[in-house]
């Protein structure tokens, strides 16, 4: 692994997330479709080529307040004991606008390696006198590995909820003054 390459895979300096124009979401097969949700309270920053991000479990948004409460309970994310989900990159490779990020994600207190792929845009001048670039990222994790094993059987006996969770992240990161 070459640190020099890693450092320059992302723009140098410090860039922090524009929360209004960024999104962290998840999708998981449930019965005959996909159950989706987002986290409204997110943090993310790129500092000298390292991407770090986190979301507050309490900010999970789905289409029903009871389900939001269920997702925060010990059967799912356990917001009381593990209020944040976090990610930190270990290495980042870039080829043209494609990026591949290896890092570690922590959910419900369990840390697992993860590989993320996505697309990066080069910095542009924004209307507010600053500079920003975009990252669109995707990965999948096995929720069982993080101790999130809730399920209910369908009439066939098959589980209603899949194990694989797709995570999609859209970030706009703006340049911070040094």
């Amino acid at each position, binding site marked *: 692994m070459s640190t020099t390459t890693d450092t320059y895979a992302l723009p140098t300096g410090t860039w922090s997330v524009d929360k209004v124009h960024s999104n962290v979401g998840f999708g998981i097969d449930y019965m005959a479709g996909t159950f989706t949700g987002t986290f409204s309270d997110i943090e993310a920053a790129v500092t000298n080529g390292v991407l770090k991000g986190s979301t507050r479990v309490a900010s999970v948004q789905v289409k029903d*307040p*009871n389900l939001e*409460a*269920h997702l925060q*309970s*010990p*059967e799912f994310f*356990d917001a*009381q*004991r593990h209020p944040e989900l976090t990610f930190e990159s270990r290495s980042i490779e870039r080829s043209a606008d494609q990026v591949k990020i290896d890092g570690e994600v922590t959910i419900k207190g369990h840390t697992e390696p993860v590989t993320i792929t996505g697309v990066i845009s080069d910095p542009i001048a924004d209307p507010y006198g600053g500079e920003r670039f975009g990252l669109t990222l995707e990965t999948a994790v096995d929720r069982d590995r993080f101790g999130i094993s*809730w399920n209910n059987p369908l009439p066939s006996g098959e589980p209603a909820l899949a194990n694989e969770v797709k995570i999609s992240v859209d970030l706009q990161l703006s340049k911070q003054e040094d």
Partner: protein
Amino acid sequence: MRVLGISGSLRRDSHNMALLRHAGELIEAQGAEFAVYDGLREVPLYDEDLDAEVPAAAVTEIRAAVREADAVLFATPEYNSSIPGGLKNGIDWLSRPSLTESALRDKPVAVIGASTGVFGAVWAQAELRRVLGATGARVIDDEVAVGRAPEQFDEHGRLDDEHLVDQMRQITGALLAETESGQLAELAA
């Protein structure tokens, strides 16, 4: 630290009540307080029409008892492969009006059980753990299954099988450890 015991069997000479009292002694030996809640038979059948701002006194009482406890230990028999209706009814009241306001939310809980049959209420215990998980409780993933209950207790109403007593020490120890780690996490937050 205060642990509340709830028996799913209401019978005066209930094996599950004996089991719960023995568990209580083991809990006290580990330095925590233990009290049995015995108002389950007074709790009315759940009816949303009665689930008002001021519900029946028995409902207020069971909710307060659970809220004031740091952890809850349930002992359940098995009726028709499941948990007794009265116990489920009490839990339904505790879980209302919503998951965010459930008296059981984030509450460390454990389940033990006794039955006159050979299996020791294992299906009822599994069902009860599932129900408690749905109410937002923090469920210890363990069980103590006391089968052939009439043969398992001595004249003082204590289990006389050392292997079962060890299992009881383990599950009560796990419940207290879980409760303590939650209290430490809250202090640190």
